[in-house]
């Protein structure tokens, strides 16, 4: 039993005077370099710069065909040219108009579905069954059917957009409302919130992280669906609704038909750019001002 340790009794002591803590690096100003490295944007921008140079360098020394992979500088020129001379901005506007139409109508329908799902058990069953059934179906797969029903035109695209918006938005909002804690519900009722005020002043802000997540996912799905729809059927849509229409997807597709490959790349860049601007600028700003400020971000 010699393995059992005995408590070692030591004399007690109390510090009389703590004095000044002295160490060179208790607090030191960061150098400019350290501050730069800490900036997210600086680090990510440098990655982009490296990629750009690698691209330019590779196309110049390998002698790869312009039709397979144009130079980065040519792509940049094409982008500039498309913006100045080829109505790329109008095409962006066309795409966004269709997208917003689908998005807004989708939000209205999602709101109705979610309201029904919260208020009644039947509505709950309807939403969960429909979501389980339709969510796995890629929206673009509905486009042939939509063209049959609504003909060639933006109505068909809007219809497919609805499909990509409604389910993620309704599902996330519903999950959010269900997840509002009993304590917060009781607090709301304690201070006299009833009916509509209970929903607007308590349930919606409490479920806001999930709601925002749904809006983000819905937007991302819709953007991808729209570009795909324009790529495949954009020509038909553009033709029927006159010149100067058609969106970004159509720009990419028609540039490819004309063998203007730098313009194909420029179009793809624009698709990325619009996506990044909306997703990271708009939604990130909303996030920073709301759920991150409130410490409610779950992920």
């Amino acid at each position, binding site marked *: 039993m010699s393995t059992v340790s005995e408590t070692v009794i030591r004399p007690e002591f109390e510090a009389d005077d703590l004095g000044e803590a002295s160490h060179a690096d208790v607090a030191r100003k960061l150098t400019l370099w350290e501050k730069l490295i800490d900036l997210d944007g600086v680090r990510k921008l440098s990655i982009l710069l490296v990629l750009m140079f690698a691209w330019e360098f590779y196309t110049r020394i390998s002698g790869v065909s312009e039709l397979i992979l144009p130079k980065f500088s040519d792509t940049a020129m094409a982008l500039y040219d498309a913006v100045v001379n080829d109505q790329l901005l109008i095409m962006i506007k066309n795409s966004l108009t269709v997208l917003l139409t689908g998005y807004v109508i989708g939000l209205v329908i999602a709101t109705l579905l979610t309201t029904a799902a919260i208020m009644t058990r039947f509505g709950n069953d309807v939403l969960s069954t429909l979501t389980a059934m339709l969510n796995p179906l890629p929206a673009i797969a509905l486009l042939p059917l939509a063209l049959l029903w609504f003909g060639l035109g933006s109505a068909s695209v809007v219809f497919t957009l609805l499909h990509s918006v409604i389910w993620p938005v309704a599902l996330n909002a519903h999950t959010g409302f269900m997840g509002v804690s009993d304590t917060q519900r009781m*607090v709301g009722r304690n201070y006299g919130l009833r009916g509509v*005020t209970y929903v607007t002043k308590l349930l919606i802000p409490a479920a806001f992280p999930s709601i925002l997540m749904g809006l983000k996912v819905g937007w991302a799905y819709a953007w991808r669906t729209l570009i795909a729809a324009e790529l495949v059927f954009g020509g038909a849509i553009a033709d029927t609704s006159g010149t100067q229409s058609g969106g970004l997807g159509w720009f990419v597709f028609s540039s490819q038909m004309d063998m203007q490959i730098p313009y194909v790349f420029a179009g793809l860049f624009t698709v990325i750019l619009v996506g990044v601007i909306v997703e990271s600028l708009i939604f990130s700003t909303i996030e920073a001002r709301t759920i991150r*400020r409130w*410490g*409610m971000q779950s992920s």
Partner: protein
Amino acid sequence: MDQGAHTAAGDTPAAAAVDPILDVDGVTLQYKTKEHLITATYRVGFKVYPADRFVLLGPSGCGKSTLLKGVAGYLKPVEGNMRLKGVDIKEPGPDRVMVFQEFDQLLPWKTVKQNITFALMNGGKCKTQAEADEVAMQYIKKVKLDRFEDTYPHMLSGGMKQRVAIARGMAMEPDILLMDEPFAALDALTRRQMQEELLQLWDDTRFTVLFVTHSIEEALIVGSRILVLSPHPGQVKAELNAHHLNHDNTGDPAFGELQSKIHDMLFADRILEDELAAAAEGAQNS
């Protein structure tokens, strides 16, 4: 039986002249889980008088939190009745403000001050925002959180969050403040500090509070009168006075005596249950 408990514990003469704020009479409360219908309390009765620090004390499963939710109006009794100032309690309302154990009782999207003004405005206590701001600041100062009024709850420590919740409850100036183990999620040092602060606040404004706890020590320190409940389902075991006890005399023999008396009351059940179980086992074996 309610009456009997009162006289046994030595009713103060004043109690006969003053009307109780809260009168709980023969209340049986039940709630459903997925599998069972559970009787939380069985024919529980007690009266809370103005400026009481009335404690519901018992082990887990004695229905003390359920009882508090019943008083708050979230749960209807299947038997008996609960009256606030002579009026039947039907639904939740700002005349009975609840302070919860959970920190998420503060709305995370509102600052400390907004959490209080939100309650004041929606609860109908204040008509204008300016008036609500003023009242809110007054109570924020009371719980020593000035300088933090524009902070969001997630930046605060647990103790500070509970102080905001208490300030919000007191700002409403309810007929009765309902506290559901408000300090249970705090560390021991903070808990003691909060108990002292609560008693100081009570000294200032003499509000009426119904306080739920499972700690005998906390019941003796915080409470002026203690209702001891037995578990499964909750029934009244005793109603005791503790107005003479606080942090300063935890070392007194009176404190220790009452503590062990309550301890025995709650513990007696367990011994009885153990004996019954043992007896049942013995009967089976023979």
